[in-house]
């Protein structure tokens, strides 16, 4: 098992199929612009076949690239169709351009990191005194803004009086007194509206609400019995027997 492991390590050395292709291309020892794409494809497919023979787990992208290269190889070898789509020569050229471009960046990176780098080859001053910039704020605010702000605060926070002008209401106390009194008059069931004072409009609405609350309160105290046939049906009141 030692040998396959060796090759696994080797596989891990490649950063993906393009990296592997570039290294194979470089092994042709010619200018990348003059490499033989066909030879390159052969090498790649042979590499993948060898890895497969050793039953190595190849990453999916290696296999996808292998499939694509096999397609490219057959397209390059077969007699030209009238209108090949896509043009295999163009595909080969694109692959070559990608390899050149990656190679150029690899080269550029190597030249970059080999430069005289600050902190490694050249050094800045070791103990700079340092520069200090004290920022002083020059606040842009004037007297008008100040007093206008105070005006706004005053307006916002001065107490607001809300006066209810002339609104007739029947208080709960009045309703309690009236309902209790009227309950004493008869033993029969009587509808709630018969307990209301003669009135109309806003006062009547208030009287209904207060008398209803009074009826509930008296029922709680056991001083009245309530009956209602169904929701929203008239409410009947009776003195307990």
């Amino acid at each position, binding site marked *: 098992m030692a040998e396959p492991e060796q090759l696994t390590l080797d596989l891990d050395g490649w950063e993906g199929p393009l990296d592997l292709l570039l290294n194979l291309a470089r092994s042709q020892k010619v200018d990348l612009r003059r490499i033989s794409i066909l030879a390159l494809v052969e090498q790649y497919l042979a590499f993948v076949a060898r890895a497969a023979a050793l039953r190595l787990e190849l990453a999916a992208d290696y296999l996808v690239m292998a499939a694509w290269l096999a397609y490219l190889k057959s397209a390059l070898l077969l007699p030209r169709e009238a209108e090949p789509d896509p043009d295999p020569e163009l595909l080969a050229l694109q692959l070559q351009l990608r390899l050149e471009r990656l190679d150029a960046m690899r080269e550029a990176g190597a030249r970059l990191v080999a430069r005289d780098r600050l902190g490694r080859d050249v050094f800045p001053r070791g103990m700079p005194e340092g520069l200090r910039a004290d920022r002083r704020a020059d606040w842009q*605010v004037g007297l008008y803004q100040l007093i206008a702000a105070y005006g706004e605060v005053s307006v916002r926070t001065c107490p607001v009086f809300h006066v209810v002008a002339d609104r007739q209401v029947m208080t709960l106390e009045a309703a309690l007194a009236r309902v209790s009194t009227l309950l004493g008059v008869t033993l029969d069931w009587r509808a709630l509206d018969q307990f209301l004072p003669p009135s109309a409009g806003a006062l009547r609405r208030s009287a209904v609400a207060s008398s209803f609350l009074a009826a509930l309160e008296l029922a709680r105290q056991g001083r009245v019995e309530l009956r209602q046939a169904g929701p929203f049906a008239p409410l009947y009141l009776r003195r307990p027997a």
Partner: protein
Amino acid sequence: MTPPDDLVRAVEAVLFAAEAPLTVDAIRAHVGADPRPALARLQADYAGRGVQLVRRGDRWLFQTAADLAHLLRRTSEERRSLSRAAVETLAIIAYHEPVTRAEIEAIRGVQISRGTLDVLLEAGWIRPAGRREVPGRPLTYATTPGFLTHFGLASRRDLPGIDDLRAAGLLDPVDLSSERLEKPGDSA
């Protein structure tokens, strides 16, 4: 001035890059030769420049010329506008001083953040003005002479009163939301 030789250049670079003043021995360890002639040469080269080679005890260092120290520090003025919260807080302090933070918040109807008072303190417009003798002994704030100067006031009495503000239309709730339907006095 003749161009510096290799030893002078080496001593110059070593002292420039050093993170602490170096003894002659320490320099020699870097440059591999007696640095003393080079030190003398460098001291002469830098005489009268903005940077000097100086000796402190038995250690050598480059430092900026003492007469240029003032250049290394500068103050720059930045135009900045005060936040609305800060302007309101300043106004409340000016009208009600001495006033506690809780009182400012009660008047504004909004809490004030720590930074708001800091900005006003840093601007030099307000100052702590003693503690109020109530439970918790809260700090009170008041305005400073710098406040009067900045706003062109001879004294706090020059601040327009509430009636002046109303007369000037500054109490008209023009931009307030419709939730405030009535003003006291209007409906009565």
